[in-house]
C-alpha cells in the first residue's frame, strides 16, 4: 500500500449534509421547471422530492449500519444526478404531455431499494469473488435473453429489450456488472499465470491459450452483442471494460495494444459487414448535409441537439424556458443536450464535474481497496460509469458517432437506473472496505471474505503488491 494513510473517520454526518444539499439541488430544479412552465401542481414536486429523500435516507441508514466508512461523496452525487434527471424528464413530460417521470420515479425507487438489498445482502464485496464463473454464465444468459423469440423485442433497431409483464428491460445493462465481477474474479486469480506463463514474443509476453480462454469467450460475447443485437453502445462499453480490466490487472500497456487490436478487428469487421454501423458513421461525418438531416434515422436527432445546446449558450434558457422537446429522445439519449439548452454551458459543466467526481471517487475506492479483486472490481465499475458518460456525451457533442447509451442516473430508462444504482452500492461497499480501520493483522485474509484453502497459492502471489 503506497497511498497516504489517514486515521479512518466514518464521515456519515458529512454524507447526510451533502445529501440534504443534493436534495435541495433536485428540489430547486423541480421548482424551476414548475414555475417556468406554469405547472401549478407544486404538490407533485414535493411528493417526488419527498420520495427521493426517503429513499436516499434508506441507503444512508444502511451505510451507517453496514458500511460506515464508505465514501461520503458517492451517495449525494448520485442522488443529485438522479433528481436532476427526474426534473428534466418531468419538464419534457410537461411539454409533450407524457408521463415518463412517474415511471422514472418508480424505477428510481426500485433501483434504490435493490441497491439497499445489495448492500444488506453482500455487506463485503469479497463474497462476490466466489461467483466468478456464475457471473460469466449470468452475463451470457443476460445477453442472450433478448434473442429468445417471444421474450425479446427490437426497439429503435436494437434487439436489446425483453418484455416481462408490463415492463420492458434491457438485461444487457446488468451484464455490465456481472461481466465486471467475472473479469475481476478471473483476473485476480489468474493474473500471475497470464503474466508469467507462456512464451515471450518480441516485446510481448503471450499467455498460454488455456489461461486466456475465458477472456476470449468474454470478448466474443461483446462481438456477438454488436453483430446480433445491433447495439453499438453496449459493444463499445464491453470492449472498453475488457481492455481496462486486462490493463489494470497486468499494468502492461502492451495488453492494451493487444486489446485494441482485437477491438479494431471487430470494429472493421462490423463496419464492413453491417449497414447500421456504416450508416451511423456516415450520419456522424455528414450530419449537416440536408439530405442526411431529413433522412429517416438521419442526423436530425444529433443536429437538433446541437442547435438546442447552441441556443442555450453560456447561461441557458432556464429550466422550462427552452424547447428541448424539439430534439428526438430529449429525455433519454439526448438528455445532456436538454440540460445544455436549459441550464447552459455553466450548468452542464457542473453536471459533468459531478460525473468526474463520482468516477474519481470510484477509482479512489479501487486505489484504497486492500484486495486485488476489490481493486479490479471497483476500477471496472467506476470505469463503466465513466465510459458510459464519455461515450454518450461524445456522441451528443458529435465528437464520436452517437450511440444509444444511457447517461447514468439521468436518462429515462429503468434498466440503466437499476444497474447503475447496483454499481453505486458495490462501490460504496468497496470504499468502506478500503477506508475502514485495519482490524488486527493485514494479510491474506483481506483477499477473501471467507477463508478457503484451495487458493493459497494465488493468495501468496498477490498479497505483496
Amino acid at each position, binding site marked *: 500500500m503506497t497511498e497516504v494513510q489517514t486515521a479512518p473517520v466514518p464521515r456519515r454526518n458529512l454524507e447526510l449534509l451533502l445529501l440534504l444539499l443534493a436534495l435541495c439541488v433536485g428540489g430547486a430544479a423541480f421548482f424551476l421547471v414548475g414555475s417556468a412552465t406554469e405547472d401549478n401542481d407544486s404538490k407533485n414536486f414535493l411528493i417526488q422530492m419527498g420520495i427521493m429523500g426517503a429513499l436516499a435516507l434508506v441507503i444512508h441508514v444502511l451505510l451507517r449500519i453496514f458500511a460506515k466508512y464508505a465514501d461520503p461523496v458517492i451517495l449525494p452525487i448520485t442522488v443529485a444526478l438522479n433528481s436532476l434527471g427526474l426534473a428534466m424528464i418531468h419538464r419534457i413530460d410537461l411539454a409533450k404531455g407524457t408521463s415518463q417521470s412517474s415511471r422514472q420515479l418508480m424505477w428510481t425507487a426500485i433501483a434504490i431499494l435493490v441497491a439497499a438489498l445489495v448492500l444488506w445482502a453482500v455487506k463485503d464485496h469479497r463474497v462476490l469473488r466466489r461467483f466468478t464463473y456464475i457471473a460469466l454464465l449470468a452475463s451470457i444468459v443476460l445477453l442472450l435473453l433478448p434473442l429468445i423469440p417471444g421474450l425479446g423485442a427490437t426497439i429503435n433497431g436494437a434487439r436489446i429489450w425483453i418484455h416481462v409483464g408490463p415492463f420492458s428491460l434491457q438485461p444487457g445493462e446488468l451484464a455490465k456488472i456481472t461481466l465486471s465481477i467475472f473479469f475481476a474474479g478471473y483476473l485476480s486469480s489468474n493474473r500471475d499465470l497470464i503474466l508469467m506463463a507462456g512464451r515471450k514474443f518480441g516485446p510481448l509476453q503471450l499467455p498460454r491459450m488455456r489461461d486466456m480462454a475465458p477472456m476470449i469467450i468474454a470478448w466474443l460475447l461483446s462481438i456477438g452483442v454488436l453483430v446480433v443485437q445491433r447495439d453499438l453502445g453496449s459493444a463499445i462499453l464491453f470492449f472498453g471494460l475488457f481492455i481496462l480490466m486486462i490493463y*489494470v490487472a497486468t499494468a502492461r500497456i502492451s495488453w492494451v495494444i493487444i486489446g485494441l487490436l482485437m477491438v479494431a478487428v471487430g470494429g472493421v469487421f462490423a463496419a464492413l459487414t453491417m449497414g447500421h454501423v456504416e450508416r451511423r458513421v456516415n450520419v456522424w461525418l455528414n450530419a449537416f448535409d440536408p439530405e442526411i438531416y431529413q433522412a429517416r434515422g438521419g442526423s436530425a436527432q444529433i443536429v437538433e441537439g446541437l*442547435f438546442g445546446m447552441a441556443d442555450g449558450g453560456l447561461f441557458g434558457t432556464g429550466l422550462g424556458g427552452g424547447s428541448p422537446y424539439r430534439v428526438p429522445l430529449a429525455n433519454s439519449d439526448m438528455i445532456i443536450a436538454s440540460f445544455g439548452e436549459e441550464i447552459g454551458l455553466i450548468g452542464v459543466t457542473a453536471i459533468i464535474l459531478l460525473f468526474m467526481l463520482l468516477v474519481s471517487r470510484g477509482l479512489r475506492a479501487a486505489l484504497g481497496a486492500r484486495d486485488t479483486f476489490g481493486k479490479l472490481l471497483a476500477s471496472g465499475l467506476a470505469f463503466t460509469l465513466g465510459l458510459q458518460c464519455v461515450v454518450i456525451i461524445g456522441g451528443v457533442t458529435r465528437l464520436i458517432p452517437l450511440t444509444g447509451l444511457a447517461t447514468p442516473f439521468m436518462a429515462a430508462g429503468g434498466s440503466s437506473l437499476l444497474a447503475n444504482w447496483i454499481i453505486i452500492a458495490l462501490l460504496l461497499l468497496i470504499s468502506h472496505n478500503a477506508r475502514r480501520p485495519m482490524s488486527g493483522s493485514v494479510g491474506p485474509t483481506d483477499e477473501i471474505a471467507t477463508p478457503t484453502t484451495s487458493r493459497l497459492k494465488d493468495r501468496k502471489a498477490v498479497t505483496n503488491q
Partner: protein
Amino acid sequence: MNQAIKHVWVALTAMFVICLGALSYIQFFNAETLNDNALNKRQLFREFDLPRGAILVDGKPIAESVETDDGQFNFQRKYTDPELYAHLTGYYSLANGTTQLESELNDWLTGSSSDLLFDRLAGMFTGQKAEGASVELTIDGKLQQAAYDAIPDGLRASVVVTDPKTGEILSMVSKPTFDTNDLAVHSTSEAAKNMKKISEIDGLSPYVNPAIGDLVSPGSSFKILSTVAALESDDYDMNTVIKNPASVNYPGSKDKMNNFYEGICGRRSEATLEFIFAQSCNTPYMEISQKLGIEKFADVTERFGFGQQLDIPQSVTPSQFPTKDITAAQLAQMAIGQYNNKVTPLQMNMAAMAIANDGVIMKPNMVKKVTAPDLRVIEEPKPEKFSTATTPEVAADLKSLMKGPVQSGTAMNAAVPGVDLRAKTGTAQVRNENGVPIVNSWITGFAPADDPQVAITVTIQQVDYNTGHNTAGAIMKKMVEAVFNK
C-alpha cells in the same frame, strides 16, 4: 496495479475534459454559427409558439392567431375570407415560408419591432409572454368584396382602388386566388401537398400578388403618359392638329403601325388630341414619339414611378420603360404601351391618381395603423407625397381628355349615369406561351371629375379581345357603382 488505476483515472479525466471542450465549442464559440444554420428552425418555432398580432380590415381580423392544441404549437394562424385577401395577407407557414403582409409586417406582428422594445422589457419582468401588435389595413371590406364579385371566375384579372388624395389603398383583388389556410397548416406533409395543388392552378403563383408583382404591357392606357409628355413639350397643346393616317411605317422598317381596324379613328385623317385620345388612335403617337425623343419619355415615366422602389409595405415590382439601345421604331411601340414597356396594375392606378390629384401622386399605402396589445397606437402613417408627376395645368388637360373615352369613345361601357367618370382603356397585343395572339385589357380612371374620391384600375391578362374589352369595362362599371352606391 495502483499505477494502472491512476493511469485509468488520467485517461478518463482527459476524456471528460475533451467532452467539456466540445460542449464549450458548441455552446459558446460556435453557437452563433449553429444558430444561423439554415436547418435551424428554432427561431421560427419560437415565433410559432407565441400569439401573433392580427391583421384587421374594418376592425375585424382577416388573419389572426387562435389557440390550438394540435400538440405541435400553441397557436394556429387562421384566415377569415382567405380567398378574398390571399394576395394581400400572404400566409404564415412553417413549411412554405412567410409571404406578403405576413412577411413585411413580421416585426410588428411578432412584437420584435423596436417600437415594442419597452413592452418586451416589461414582459421580461412580469413574466408575460410578448404579444405582437395588430395591424389595421386601409382596405375597405365592402369594396374588396365588390371587386372580388365583379371579376368573373376563370379570368386572370386584378382590380386596384385607391384614394388619390391620400394614397390609401381601398381595394386590391386578384383572381385566380387560393385558400391561405391550406398553406398555413402545421403538418409539413399536408402543407407541402396543398402547396403543390395550389401551384398547379393556371395563372396563379402563391408567391406573387399580381396587382403589384405582375409586369404586363399597358397598351393604350399608357397614352396617358405619352400625352402628358406631348403636352409638357412646346410642340403640342390641346388645339394642335396631328396627322392620323390609317397606318404608317415604322422608321427604317416595312412594318406598319395601324389604327384599330374596327375603330372610329379612320373617320378623320387628322385630328386634335381630344378625338385621338377618346378613340385611342395609334398613328399620331408615332409622330409624337419621334418628335419628343427618348429622354422626354424617360423623364415622364420616372416621375410617374417607373423604375422606382416602392413599398406599400409589400415591395412593388418597379415598372419598366427601358431607355438603353432603343431604336426609333421601338420607342414608337413603347409610346403606345407595347414592346418592352411593362407595368404593374398599381403603376397604371398611380397614373390615374396623378391626373386626379392635380399632378401629384400620393404614396400608395395599405397600413392604416399599428396597435400594441395594450391598444396603444404605435404607428399611424400620414399621407405622404410620392412624386410630382406633372404640372396642374397638364393634369387638368388630361382630366378633360379622359372624359372622351367614357362619353363617346372606348370606355363607354364603363359609364355610370350620374357619376362623372374619367378613364382610359388599353389593349396590349401579346402572345401567350403557345404563341397564340391574345390581349391584356386595361381600364384605368378616377371619379368623380370635380372632386376625385377614387382611382380605379382594372387589368385582365391573357384574354381574347372581345372578352377583355367588354369585361374590363363591366368590372370598372361595377366598381364605380359600388363606390358611389349606385
